[in-house]
């Protein structure tokens, strides 16, 4: 387990994913607002490499990852709907309650 985690780590480091973070870190992070796990567009992976952001389904916001540093400051959060339009991943049903 640990080996796998550190392999993922080194891979992420070598890959210099400016818009991604190591899985081991992603597993530990929660949404700063809801304290619920962060996910990525309902994919099994809990962080979304494609859109370069971490998504909090509970409060329907996303947090950016810049230069490999996730920004989990509540005031930097973006409403999910805006993100979806940009990344054209309109698969997620919208809540009318917003």
């Amino acid at each position, binding site marked *: 387990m*640990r080996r796998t985690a*550190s392999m993922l*780590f*080194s891979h992420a*480091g070598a890959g210099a994913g400016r818009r991604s*973070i*190591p899985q*081991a*870190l992603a597993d*530990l*992070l*929660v*949404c*700063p*607002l809801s*304290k619920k796990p*962060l996910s990525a567009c309902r994919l099994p992976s809990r962080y979304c490499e494609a859109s370069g952001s971490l998504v909090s389904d509970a409060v329907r916001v996303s947090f950016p990852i*810049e*230069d*490999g*540093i*996730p*920004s*989990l*400051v*509540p*005031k*930097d959060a973006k409403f999910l709907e805006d993100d979806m339009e940009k990344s054209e991943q309109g698969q997620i049903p919208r809540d009318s309650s917003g």
Partner: protein
Amino acid sequence: MALRAARRLASCSRQGRLLLPSQPQAQCNPPAAAAAAFLHSHATSFGYKQVREEEKSRLVGNVFSSVASSYDLMNDLMSVGLHRLWKDRLVSQLNPFPGMKHLDVAGGTGDVAFRVLERIKSVGHRAMQGTLTDAEEDTHIYVCDINPNMLNVGKKRAAERGYNEEHCLSWIQGDAEALSFEDGSMDGYTIAFGIRNVTHIEKALSEAYRVLKRGGRFLCLELSHVDVPVFKEIYDVYSFSVVPTMGELVAGDRQSYQYLVESIRRFPNQEKFAQMIQEAGFERVEYENLVGGVVAIHSGLKL
């Protein structure tokens, strides 16, 4: 030589320890906490200025963005190198161990994180081969800072120190008042020269409590209140005349350093802050004054 002199000064510092009587009724009392939050005014201090709460985080952000590049140099100058010894002291009180999960808040430039890492390594090597190297691999230090400029300085320094190949350091931009870590996920929590700058100290303390495991330790290094006669006067002159001028000359930013010295005076004194830590739920709360209270290290356990 300067370092030796600094050490001498640090060692003749007056040290006061206090163990607060436990107040079980004050702890774990959500209605009281809610009432306190309710009574909290919506104006807050930015140095001696009264500003709106939303303003403070922006203004503090400006301060740190503006001084990020000269931050370490200014720390050395202002504290005559003492901040290094204070951080060493903080980390030695933490007593880091191989395999620990540690969160350092407001530590963007990596000063505390690197010390924790170095100490774990030296402990690991002393304890010898095999079992502990495995534990060492599990070690993870999370550096959380609200300011991206400070984090970038830290990341760069980590690379310069050859830490870029290591898997045990993570950098996260986050707010001390709304941490993004799971409940009970950390063995240790440190915050050095950071808590003074958060808008709601009590929120930061309750978040620290939340992310710590049972048995986890909270440690806070902060500029505090000097109460030694004569020395207090000298310290005041130094703070209000020398520091802002130095800030202007070295960092080209007088205002940020004016804010710094004012915010120190606004921060609750040692006893009051110890009480706040206890109100957040921590036990065995104590503090240690260094250099007559210029800085204090507060500590508490989540039991």
